[in-house]
């Protein structure tokens, strides 16, 4: 076989040497456009897992690489003039030039021929002259461009600017430095790669970059600026430039990596944000996978297919984590008021790959510090000597203290009669309280008969309902320390449907009642057309909420939640998809919020000042033309300003056409976004299956409460 490798970077060289080693009779030639010793960037980082992969693939180079490595275990986070260190992370760094030298030597030893300073003008000509063309020609790959129709590359430009320096200061840890300036926040990612030199990347938001005038500075001026900005860390050491210019990070993905006898490797096929340090790691692992594919398949096409199949899921997983990490650094301003210990925890768990329990395994003392801090900040009293995990920290809201962060709600049953809850409801709620929930919330309780979703919904619109709830609350208070809350709801245009045992939003076969909504738009196909609310209706619904609140007080509830999510009446005012009014209650978001806020004001005025009030809001409609997360943030700010103490973050359900996401991360991300962008405490409704997930969210300040459902358990 006759193989041509385009590009003499780590991917190309490593693939060449691995293939030559297994198949000494194959002709393998590497072409590189730059001189032998030219290289950009400074050092590269590997985890211990990558290292063992290298060892298995080729012991000779692996030994040399390992000898050339500096190893370290700590991550240092410098934030607000404090240092937080977390240990137990195995890292290894090596100079890029040194790595290339090792790979080049091994290529020579095995008989791979290498040509430097050689341009290949037409990859297609080269492809036809060999059996296999390995395109490892980097992020600006000419080969990829030549066969763009097959590879279908797509790129996303990052919103931050970064510059890649070296420094003669040896760091002893993977070091993050955050520096708040009058222009905005600067971040440094620094790590050692040999005994005397480190990589030093400076990153900031594009606006910060412009504000600081860096867009108008040349290479030397920029470096001088950074040198002075971080002089306290650099001391007498110097920043070093190697054509170090400000860039924005481009993430590259390709639909295919194989075209006929051409295969993409490394940066030519994919890139992943530098903040998880994975570019070279991915490149070398690509090479290993390609070599392995040729061990398993004699047929060229089958080998290439198998390479792509084996690598794609791994690469995509890394790209997902890298994208999370990138997003974190682009939005890190959001967390600038955090305490350093929580800031560090949030940073370490940013990509979703490292959790609370992972960190406990790596550095139990660090996690104990996090727990101690969390417990102390949650509770003004003397911190516990053995602090519990965040899940078990109390939370004070107004005059009420929840004993822990777990919120549960009984599953829906639709067994109420004329709004009177079935007696089994008391047992269901009781079980959750004795099962350890700090706050037990009822499911949606209708404020009027008209506001019920189905004839089986419970309500609180008669004195009989009040007495029934009163009994339930009293029983719960007697039997457990749990706090008990009620969720007030009005179904709006989702009302008058069959119980949900056979599906959602199916109108009753007979006995339908008329529906209220901001506009006469039915919820879905087959749904009843609601009546657009008029002046009297607003006063009537407001009064229903007030009366329901008075009954909730009389029934003894500790917490009250208003449901402004789930496509109900108040939710339908918020969304432009369902609110198309032309009066003061419709139009832009401010106007669409008017009626929901009027209800909130009315309830807050009646609900005791020492008891907390929650509001469930949609973070987004998950639908084109609907509410977006920026609206979700505004809604959270507004309800908070109107006396809500904590928002419960839901999403979707405004219409049946929404495109929901059911992974844990998405909803958890919304709770984080709203909490830290709007500055409002949040409850996450992410689909939690383990306490590890809950602790990771809480300790990172992504939410303050977690809604937990026993029905998610395996």
């Amino acid at each position, binding site marked *: 076989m006759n193989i041509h490798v385009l590009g003499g970077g780590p991917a190309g060289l490593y693939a060449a040497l691995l293939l030559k080693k297994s198949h000494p009779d194959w002709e393998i030639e590497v072409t590189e456009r730059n001189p032998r010793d030219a290289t950009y960037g400074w050092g590269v980082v590997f985890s211990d897992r990558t290292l063992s992969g290298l060892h298995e693939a080729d012991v000779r180079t692996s030994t040399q690489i390992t000898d050339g490595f500096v190893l370290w275990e700590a991550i240092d986070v410098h934030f607000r003039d404090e240092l937080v260190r977390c240990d137990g992370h195995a890292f290894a760094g090596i100079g890029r030039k040194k790595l290339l030298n090792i790979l080049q030597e091994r290529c020579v030893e095995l008989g791979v021929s290498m040509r430097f300073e050689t341009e290949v003008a037409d990859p297609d000509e080269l492809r036809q002259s060999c059996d296999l063309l390995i395109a490892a020609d980097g992020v600006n790959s000419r080969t990829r461009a030549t066969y763009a129709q097959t590879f279908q590359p797509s790129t996303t430009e990052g919103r931050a600017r970064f510059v890649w320096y070296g420094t003669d200061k040896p760091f002893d840890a993977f070091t993050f430095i955050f520096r708040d300036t009058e222009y905005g926040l600067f971040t440094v990612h620094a790590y050692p790669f040999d005994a005397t030199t480190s990589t030093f990347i400076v990153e900031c938001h594009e606006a910060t970059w412009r504000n600081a005038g860096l867009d108008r500075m040349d290479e030397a001026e920029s470096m001088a600026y950074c040198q002075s900005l971080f002089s306290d860390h650099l001391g007498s050491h110097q920043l070093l430039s190697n054509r170090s210019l400000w860039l924005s990070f481009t993430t590259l993905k390709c639909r295919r990596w194989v075209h006929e006898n051409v295969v993409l490797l490394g940066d030519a096929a994919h890139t992943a944000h530098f903040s998880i340090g994975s570019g070279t790691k991915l490149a070398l692992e690509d090479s290993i996978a390609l070599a392995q594919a040729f061990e398993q398949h004699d047929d060229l096409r089958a080998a290439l*297919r*198998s390479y*792509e*199949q084996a690598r794609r899921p791994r690469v995509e997983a890394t790209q997902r984590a890298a994208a999370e990490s990138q997003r974190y650094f682009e939005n890190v301003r959001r967390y600038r008021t955090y305490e350093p210990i929580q800031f560090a925890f949030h940073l370490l768990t940013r990509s979703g790959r490292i959790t609370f329990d992972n960190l406990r395994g790596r550095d139990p003392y660090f996690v104990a510090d996090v727990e101690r801090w969390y417990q102390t900040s949650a509770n003004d009293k003397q911190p516990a000597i053995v602090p519990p995990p965040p899940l078990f920290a109390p939370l004070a809201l107004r005059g009420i203290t929840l004993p822990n962060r777990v919120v549960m709600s009984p*599953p*829906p*049953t*639709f067994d109420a009669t004329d709004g009177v809850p079935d007696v089994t409801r008391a047992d269901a709620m009781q079980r959750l309280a004795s099962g350890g929930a700090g706050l037990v919330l009822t*499911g949606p309780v209708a404020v009027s008969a008209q506001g019920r979703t189905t004839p089986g919904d419970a309500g609180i619109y008669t004195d009989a309902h009040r007495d029934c709830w009163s009994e339930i609350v009293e029983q719960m208070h007697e039997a457990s320390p749990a706090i008990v809350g009620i969720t007030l709801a009005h179904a709006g245009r989702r009302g008058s449907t069959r*119980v*949900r*045992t*056979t*599906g*959602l*939003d*199916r109108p009753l*076969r007979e006995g339908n009642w008329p529906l209220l909504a901001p506009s006469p738009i039915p919820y879905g*196909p*087959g749904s009843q057309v609601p009546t657009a609310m008029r002046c009297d209706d607003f006063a009537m619904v407001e009064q229903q909420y007030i009366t329901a609140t008075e009954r909730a007080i009389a029934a003894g509830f500790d917490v009250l939640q208003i449901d402004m999510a*789930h496509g109900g009446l108040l939710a339908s005012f918020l969304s432009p998809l369902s609110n198309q009014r032309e009066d003061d209650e419709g139009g832009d978001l401010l106007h669409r919020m008017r009626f929901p806020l009027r209800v909130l004001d009315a309830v807050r005025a009646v609900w005791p000042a020492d008891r907390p009030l929650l509001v469930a809001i949609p973070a987004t409609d998950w639908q084109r033309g609907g509410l977006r997360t920026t609206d979700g943030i505004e809604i959270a700010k507004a309800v908070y300003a109107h006396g809500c103490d904590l928002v419960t973050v839901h999403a*979707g*359900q405004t219409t*049946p056409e*929404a*495109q*929901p*996401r*059911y*992974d*844990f991360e998405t909803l958890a991300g919304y709770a984080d976004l709203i909490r830290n962008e709007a500055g409002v405490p949040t409850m996450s409704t992410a*689909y939690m*299956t383990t306490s590890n997930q809950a602790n990771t969210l809480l300790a990172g300040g992504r939410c303050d409460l977690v809604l937990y*459902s026993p*029905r*998610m358990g*395996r």
Partner: protein
Amino acid sequence: MKLGIGLPNTVSGASGSDVLDWARMADVGPFASVGVFDRLVYDSLDPMMTLAAVAGTTQRVRLVTSVVIGPLRNPVVLAKEAATLDVLSGGRLTLGLALGARRDDYEAAGIDYADRGKKLDEQLRVLRDTWEDGRIGPAPVQPGGPELIVGGLDDAAFARASRYADGFIHNGGPPRIFARSVDKARAAWLDAGRPGQPQIWGMAYFALGEDEAKAGREYLLDYYAFTGPFAERIADGLLTTPQGIIQFIRGYAEAGCDHLILFPTNADLTQLERLSEVVGS
């Protein structure tokens, strides 16, 4: 977790008596159900017609379409067929529906491929309404109509299942992948405010014996050739040893599967016998 076995209705060359004998054996064997696949442009037997015949030759097992490509069929006609099948089988039908992955099936049937998701939504709505309102008989034996499950890979499928159906059917894969889908199906169910839990169904292929495993692999590579390189991953998932089958069954049970159907890759009855031996105890 209950265990079912697939009928060889999409195994090319399987004769009518092969399929009916297979169903009869399954009915006396340790299986809770028999499943059928649906492909239009392929040498295969129609799933609804197959189950109609099987309804007459079996007494006990549930009859499961896993799945029928919904949008290829007129919703009201399908509602009547399903109700009929439920009547003929004495209430043993589980109707699984999904979009299918083959464009050529849609083209051959003259059905627009682009809005197939919307079509399936509409169909699911019509099925329930037809079964319940009694204008178009027969009345199904199962109250409210045959058990209805929805398949698919993405969040839209979980949303659809929780909006209209009684549960979700996964298209196959190792237990670890399956478990992730179970979490999402449950999340969708919670989000929708449905009472109880969704019924979770899973499926896989088996071929017991050395030659049979080799042939089974070839069959899958051919049957799934339209998926490109993914066919290889499906073929790699073929269960070929008793140990592999037991481990797989346990993995699915632990991940929360309620009902797993194992499909053959050839119509030879000894396959059913061997599987019975493995799972019988």
